[in-house]
Structures are given as C-alpha cells and as structure tokens.
C-alpha cells in the first residue's frame, strides 16, 4: 500500500519535473528561468527522498539533501547574484517560435518513452515508469541549449539536463553509487565556478551575453 502511494507521489513529482522542463523552454525572462530551475531542483530532491523512503535505500536521503543544497539553494543563488552583478536581471530574451519549440519538445517526450520502453519491461523497480520522463528532461534541456542564444539560458539548459540525468539514475537504479554521485556534484560545482567566470568574460568582451555575437570562428573558404 505504502509502495503504491509512494509510486503515485513519485509519478506526480515526475510530472512536475517534466512540466518545469517545458516551462523552462517557454520562459523568456532570465529571473523567471532561475526560479523555475530552483523549483525543478526542489521536485527532484523531494522525489529522491520519497523513493529513498519507500525503497529503504537510505543513501538516497544523502543524495536528496545534496540536491536540495546544490540545485535549490546554491546554484540558483550563484546565478541570481551573477545576474544581478551583470545587471541583466530585467533581461527578456527575444525568442521566436516558442510554440514550435514546444511541439518539438512533445515529440522528444514521445521519443523518450519509445526509447526506454525495453528498459521499463526489464525493470521491477517502482520508479521504472519515470525513466522516460528523466530522459525527456535531458532531451528538453538539450533542446533549450540549442534553441536559446543567451549564455545564462544555455547554462540553465545544461543544468536542467543534469537534473534529468540525476533523475534517470534514481529512476533506473535507485541512484548511482555514492562515490559517483559525489564526483558528479563536484564536477557541477567546478562547472558553476567556470561559467561564472565566463559570464564576466563574455559580458566584458562582447558587451552582452548574447552568444550570437560570438560568430567569428567560422570555417573559412
């Protein structure tokens, strides 16, 4: 009974994660994006804790706390302060074709379900149905990085992808071994440090964070 309830709660959270991935695709305000990203991290942490409780895999509590600390507080805070320091908190990205992007996103979700179908049949974990959502989140993050031209948005797409990967690990196998999860978190921290430096470099060199201005390195004919 507890299991089915937990599985249902987890499915709900998975739906919320997917919803926030779509919201990231549609949002044009920079600050709005940071907020949605924090919410996605929150759903992820909650879902990890629920799975940890229901499955009795207690190391998931640590992962959940790590996610909460990193993705709900630390990374959004870093982004928040960077955005304020760079005075771009009012920026609204000029994105065309949001409806098309959303439709493409739906195709990617269907594709993810199709791709993970054989794994769902093999697995007997209660979280098996959410693996497709995890892969879809990865794909949507990828789509966001491809379609957006703002440096901060691209980084948010990257981080959303990472959320999807983390969710994939909890869905497929109740999380990766601890040493791997810690290592991935460390890499993420270093990446945060690096993109922080980058925002400043790009901003001072190009006077904006629009990556379309960086188009000098083309193949010469």
């Amino acid at each position: 009974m507890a299991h089915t309830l937990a599985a249902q709660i987890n499915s709900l959270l998975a739906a919320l994660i997917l919803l926030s991935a779509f919201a990231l695709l549609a949002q044009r305000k920079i600050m709005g994006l940071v907020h949605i990203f924090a919410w996605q991290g929150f759903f992820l942490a909650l879902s990890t804790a629920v799975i940890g409780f229901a499955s009795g895999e207690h190391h998931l509590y640590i992962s959940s706390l790590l996610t909460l600390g990193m993705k709900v507080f630390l990374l959004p805070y870093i982004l928040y302060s960077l955005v304020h320091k760079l005075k771009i908190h009012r920026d609204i990205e000029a994105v065309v074709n949001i409806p098309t992007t959303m439709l493409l996103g739906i195709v990617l979700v269907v594709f993810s379900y199709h791709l993970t179908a054989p794994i769902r049949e093999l697995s007997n974990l209660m979280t098996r149905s959410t693996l497709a959502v995890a892969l879809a989140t990865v794909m949507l993050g990828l789509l966001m990085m491809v379609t957006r031209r703002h440096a901060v948005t691209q980084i948010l797409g990257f981080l959303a992808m990472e959320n999807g990967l983390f969710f994939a690990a909890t869905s497929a196998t109740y999380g990766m071994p601890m040493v791997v999860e810690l290592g991935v978190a460390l890499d993420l921290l270093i990446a945060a440090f690096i993109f922080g430096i980058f925002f400043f470099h790009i901003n001072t060199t190009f006077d904006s964070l629009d990556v379309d201005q960086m188009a000098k390195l083309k193949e010469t004919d």
Partner: protein
Amino acid sequence: MILLSLLGISILVALIMAFIGDWRFAPEVNIGGSLLTFIVSLVLALQVYHEGGSISGSTYFFVDYLNISLVVLTTLVSTTTAVFSRRYMRVEREHGRVGHWRMRFYHAMFQLFIFAMLIALVTNNFGVLWISMELATLATVLLVSLYRTPTAIEAAWKYFILCGVGIAQALFGTVLLYFAAERVLGAGGNALLWTNLSRVCAQLDPTVMRLAFVFLMVGYGTKAGLVPLHNWLPDAHSEGPTPVSAVLSGLLLNIALYALIRCKALVDGSLGSGFAGNIMMGFGLFSLLTAAFSMLRQKDIKRLFAYSSIEHMGIATFAFGLGGPIATFGGVLHMIVHSLAKSATFFSVGHAAQMHGTQEMAHIRGLIRGNPAVGWGMFLGVMALAGMPPFGIFTSEFLILTATMKDAPYLAPLLLLGLTVAFAALFRKVQPMVAGLIPSGQKQLSAANIPVFLHLALVLILGIYLPGFLANWFHLAVEILK
C-alpha cells in the same frame, strides 16, 4: 601504493603551482613534477611487466597492459610539453599576452588536467571514468580562453557547451550500464567496476547494453572529436596556447577513445555481435574523410593540425571498430605514435607562429632557412603525420589497411582515399612554409628542440624496429580488448 603516488604527485604539483605558478622557476618545477610522474609511471610499468598482468591497487584503481601504456605516454608527453612550455610561455609573457595571475592559473590547470587524465586511465570504476573526463574538460576550458581575445572566449564557450552536452549523454549511458550491471552484480559500487564487468559481460542484458552504447558513443565520441560531433575541436585547439593544443590533441583525445574502447569491449561481450564495432567503423571512416577534405581548405596552421587530429582519431576508431588482433594492435600503436607525432608538430608550430607573429599559414615562410631546427622539426613531424615510411604512423596505418583488406575489403578504397587526401593536404600546406626564402619580419627565438626531436625519434624507432618486449606488450594489451 606506487599508483597512489602517481596521482598524488600531479595533484600536489597542481596545488603548489596555484601559489608559485608565476615564480621565476615555476616552469622548472612544472617540468620536475611531470618528470617525477613519468618516472613513477615507468616503475609501475616495470611492475606490471614483471608480475605479468593487472595489478589492482584497491577496488578503485587498477593497472593492466593497456592503460599503463597510455599512462606512460601521458606522463611522457606532459613532461616534454612542460619543457616546451617553458620557452614558449616565456615568449608569450614577454609579449604581454599573459600576466602573473594567468601564469599561476596556467600552470595549476595544466597539472590538474594531467591529474584528471591519469585518474581516467587508472580508475576501475566507469562512473569515476566519466567524472574525470569531465574534470579534464573543465580544467582545459579556461586554458583555451587564457588569452581573453574574443575568438578565444568564443572557442572556449563552444568547447564548454558542446562537450558538456556530449559528455552528459555519456553519463546517461553510464546510468544504463549500471542498470544492466546491477541486475547481475547487485547494487552498490562494485557493479561499475571494470574488473567485475569484464568478467560477467556475457550476462549483461543485450537490449540495455545496446542502448547504453549509443549514448556512450555519442558522449565519448564528442570528446574524441569524431565527426559530426567535432565542431568544438578545431576552435579549441587553435585558440588556446600551443602547449595546451599539444596536450589536447596528443592526450585528451586518446583518453576519450580509451573510454570508448573499454565500453566497446563490454558491449561486444554482451551482444556477441558486431553492433558496437560497426558504429565505430562508421564514425571513424566518416571522421577520416570529412577531416581530410576539410584540411584542404584551412588557412590557420593550428586549425590544420586540429583537423589532422580528427583524421587520426577517425583512423584509430575505425581500427578498433574493425576489431581482430591486427587491427586492434594497429589501433593501439596508432594512438601512441599519433600522440607523439602530433604533440611534436604542435611544438614546432607554436614556435613558427611565434616567429611570424601569426597563425596564418600564408604568412609563415622560409622556416628551414630561418630556424633549421624548427623548420626540420615541423617538416619531419608532418611527414610522420602524413604516414610516410619509415615513421611509426606508416606502420600502424599499414596494419590497419591490411586488416581492412582482409575483413572489410569494400571499405579499403575509402580508407585509402582519406589517407591520400590528408597526405596531399598536409604536404601542400606545409611545403611552402618550410621551404623558400625568409620573409621580412621573421623574428628569431630560442626554440625548445629536445621535445620535438625526442618525440620524432621515438616515432621513428616504433616505425622501423618494434623491440620484442614492446611488441609482446602491445599484444597483451590487445588481448584485454577481445
């Protein structure tokens, strides 16, 4: 124990460099640190040779014939690159392109990069392999943008974003691999260990492994610069300081390929078919051909050699995809000789670019007259890269071609076409640079010649005479990949 000191030294030197990297003798400390890791890796190699097989330091690390060869290569090239970088960075500093802080940063990140690659090679855990690949990328991202020019920042951003996306796919592949492994080996850290997985790979679920390999191929293939995932590579290799280009081309691509062939060995064991091999052959051949034709229209000297790296990675990937003892032997040999020849060429290229104050090939002329060591170094390096006998790359390409004739004869013409076009492109571009009269405005500089000629001598020796113990060694390395 020796294994841990190997990793310990490089991280320790990285830490020290963060504080003294701008000191007058910092380059010497940098060389010393790298040399120390090289010596330790030789000791380790001897130990492997005597004990005949793999040593497991603990569950976390292991060494066998395959990865120790690459460890020795990595530490050797990092040492010679440190020697080259001493002269090179001195000139850059005199030109005011890097200041105190950036020198510290440069030295610290260089050693951190070596550290990350060494972990990737000796780790037993596929998860840790992924983490250290990502760490190696992150350590080099800011080295690519060291000069802070608009193009350097653009190149570094592209590198960061594209490799970040690529490597994320590899993490998903690793999750799937863990999913398959957990069902056989049980949950926990042991399920991702190579030493366990290679034992039970026949029991891993084929459907999951097939899907996992697609993601791993895309992920590590991006890092290895395989076409069509190669967009970041020419930019990153051409905009960073030349010592960084040398280690990126010579070492990092190898490590990515190493990760890929380990994964392939598992997938082959699970599927028992040529699925993984066919994908790799496709990617390899496509990379070889695309890169060879792209080389024809390059104007920037470092971009030319960046494409040449894609070409050679394509050949090696093709060889591993083809499989079989001869092709795999050729692939391992190719990784090693390419790494040596490519870094040697980049050393000469760096000096040539400094002498002319530009990377535009049209302005680089008269190298042999201007500075014979640089000129001949570059010419011989290019001949080695183009696959001329008696250099080692000829041997490895010949082996790969022979195996192709035997196992996949219909692909041999394509392989030959790629090799010929690449040869023509290299020769056509490089010949006017080394020959001819000295242009006005060419500056003299004291070049670091030892690294270049040491590498070329090694490539030559591996080409004309492969000592018995070394041939035996490579055969044992090939056994592991079966």
